């Protein structure tokens, strides 16, 4: 691992297109500004690790580990949707391949 010492306002350049700026240091907290080409995802490590773990766990599923049908839903979920719910449902257009 490359280890560099930088002061607030100084930068590190990664490749030709990624700029990391030390915005400020306060106690144990460092604020970083990151300029990267549009499209490069940037995550805080803990959320990246957590989502990766969830994705990998999800991808281990066997077909028979999913219920063939929905278990009996609680009554509030089977009741008629209110206005907010209708707006939400309008976002959903599941594809039906095949």
């Amino acid at each position, binding site marked *: 691992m490359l280890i560099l010492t930088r002061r607030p306002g100084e930068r590190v350049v990664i490749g030709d297109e990624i700029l990391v700026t030390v915005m400020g240091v306060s106690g144990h907290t460092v604020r970083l500004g990151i300029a990267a080409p549009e499209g490069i995802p940037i995550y805080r490590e803990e*959320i990246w690790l957590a989502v*990766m773990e969830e*994705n990998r766990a999800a991808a281990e599923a066997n077909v028979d580990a999913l219920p063939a*049908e*929905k278990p009996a839903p609680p009554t509030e979920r089977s009741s008629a949707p209110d206005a907010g719910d209708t707006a939400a449902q309008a*976002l*959903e257009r599941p594809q039906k391949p095949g």
Partner: protein
Amino acid sequence: MSVTFQSIRFGTVEIAQEDVIEFPFGLIGLGGLQYTLLDHNPGSGFHWLHAVDNAALALPVVSPYQFFPSFTLEIAAEDRERTGIEDTTGAELYVTVRATPNPADITANLRAPLLVRDGRGYQVINTNADAALQVPLFALPTQERIAS
């Protein structure tokens, strides 16, 4: 035109070309650049987000609105720029599911939903503080009845 791919779960699968979803950045930690949505069992609410280019790569997904009526998505400015999706109206939204044999233990990841629009898909971070990584998909009906 159709696309045929192999699946360790479903054998040979044939889909329409327009049902291929490009994920320019793949899924976090899993990659995969092309996926499609297959129905699990009609009426179950489950779908499989299946990689077209990897026979073993598939994740169960559901529409969050179908299981979590109060679900809301808030995405950070950088995700809006990256995906080009400023307004999620008209986008399909899915969340990944951790499957287990006991339905009560099945959870959905509301923190990192999948946005699909115009044949492109992105996994984004939901910055809504209520969106947890593991939310039980099925509330226990018995508890509801006791409560009422």
